């Protein structure tokens, strides 16, 4: 227990004055924060506020124009992402990290079966026993509430909600410590959204995941996240505990954002 406390005291991911500009357009300006193990951070803001650019920089897919991102690897050593070689970065991406795309077609192999989709990461890290791969895959399908009878069906035969749950299973199978989510509930209808959020919330707690979730939906932020960062024009304008920011917004823009939610 004491060891775990110590482990949780050290930040997992640190962003230091991250900026990205495309020519004269500054997509993201001077963003700094630390993320701790098991913590869920929501990045909210309207379209074009720099959320996605920030997420891409944090997940090492886009090189920042200035600033740096460091990550505490499984061996306990914190490293600057830009100093990782491509092989190391890709390995990190398919073991210790997960990335849930808004469009499941981007994160899944639509033509191969659900079982193989979940098993791919395991095979990529050297699993070589069909029976064990299949058992682990069916175990994960159960955990994300997909009927085991559908294990050999391709995700293109799945509904939108099932695809998204499959994508989550595929990402979590290697037990990552850090998951990036880009609008995971976008394009789903409300009841499916609610179930998915429920599932994500329980998995996050169960697996002690650190999550950075990008969303424009404040309800998603409220349900899932511990902390919220509000972005506007590439800058972080307000940050704090979720209930604090959403119930008592300080910045005029955040107040506008919160008041734009339609009453149910």
């Amino acid at each position, binding site marked *: 227990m004491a060891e775990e406390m110590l482990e949780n005291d050290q930040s997992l991911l640190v962003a230091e004055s991250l900026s990205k500009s495309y020519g004269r357009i500054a997509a993201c300006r001077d963003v700094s924060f630390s993320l701790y193990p098991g913590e869920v951070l929501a990045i909210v803001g309207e379209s074009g506020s720099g959320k996605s650019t920030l997420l891409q920089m944090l997940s090492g897919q886009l090189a920042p124009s200035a600033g740096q991102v460091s990550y505490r690897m499984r061996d306990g050593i914190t490293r600057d992402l830009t100093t990782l070689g491509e092989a190391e970065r890709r390995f990190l991406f398919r073991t210790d990290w997960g990335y849930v795309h808004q469009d499941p077609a981007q994160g899944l192999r639509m033509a*191969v079966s659900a079982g193989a989709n979940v098993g*791919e990461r395991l*095979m990529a890290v050297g699993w070589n026993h*069909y*029976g064990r791969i*299949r058992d682990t895959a069916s175990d994960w399908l159960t955990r994300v509430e997909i009927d085991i009878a559908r294990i*050999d069906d391709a995700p293109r035969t799945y509904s939108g909600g099932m695809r998204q749950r499959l994508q989550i299973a595929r990402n979590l199978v290697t037990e990552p410590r850090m998951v990036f989510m880009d609008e995971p509930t976008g394009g789903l209808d409300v009841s499916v959204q609610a179930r998915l959020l429920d599932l994500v919330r329980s998995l996050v707690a169960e697996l002690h995941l650190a999550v950075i979730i990008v969303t424009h939906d404040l309800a998603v932020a409220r349900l899932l996240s511990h902390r919220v960062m509000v972005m506007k024009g590439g800058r972080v304008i307000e940050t704090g505990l979720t209930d604090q920011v959403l119930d008592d917004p300080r910045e005029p823009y955040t107040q506008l954002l919160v008041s734009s939610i339609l009453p149910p």
Partner: protein
Amino acid sequence: MNAPAYNFAYLDEQTKRMIRRAILKAIAIPGYQVPFASREMPMPYGWGTGGVQVTAAILGPQDVLKVIDQGSDDTTNAISIRKFFAKTAGVATTTATEDATVIQTRHRIPETSLHANQVLVYQVPIPEPLRFLEPRETETRRMHALAEYGLMHVKLYEDIARFGHIATAYAYPVKVNARYVMDPSPTPKFDNPKMDNCPALQLFGAGREKRIYAIPPYTQVVSLDFEDHPFEPYRFNAPCALCAAENSYLDEIVIDDKGGRMFVCSDTDYCEGRQAAGHHGSLSAAPYKEKAQEGSNG
């Protein structure tokens, strides 16, 4: 017999130089696909333009050439390529595997084991084993560079999930020299074990895709599999109907319109050799055989 309009073996010397460079690089990095400036050949793509260019680049006047297509020396493709080199290079040709120094092949490895003074040239339609799993060439190259081959097992996984066993029967992926995953061209997986530790040099040419790769002599070639679903070469369980061979790869031939079938060696040279040595199968009727032998002797 050289037609004066052509250089020896059709290609000009600069082109051969370029191809030889690619071949040397391919031999130095077993299983790695080396790009080369593939030329237009006087035959359509898919008929062995890659293999023909490799053969043309390595052929010398003393070489003895054998060309097989699906194991057979007497199909259109095999005959036309053999004639092509007989005409443009004036080299001796043969159908006997032992006598050949260069063997160009499509879809088979000869049954007779190869020896150290031979080169086996494969015609390759699609050199990229990951092609149908990952369509982006930039991505597959990166995967080869980083030896990320998990995806190859996804294909085998799919086979087992669908059919209960690894159903890939040809172009079965192999790992060469414990590094590169390679497509052995559409040879049946029955032939995969013959590639391992083979005394002959094996060269692969893909003309349309502009790639050359190689397995140097005595190189380890391992067929990919799962621990609980190990690689098994497939062979139809029957003796050859003409030579009664129990361990050769068989072709299924339809012999009437009432569902009649016969299974014969796909390697015609091997089958004829065995028949000449006195082996008889269930359907090798004596008068026909004698007639056939007279024909080939004359």
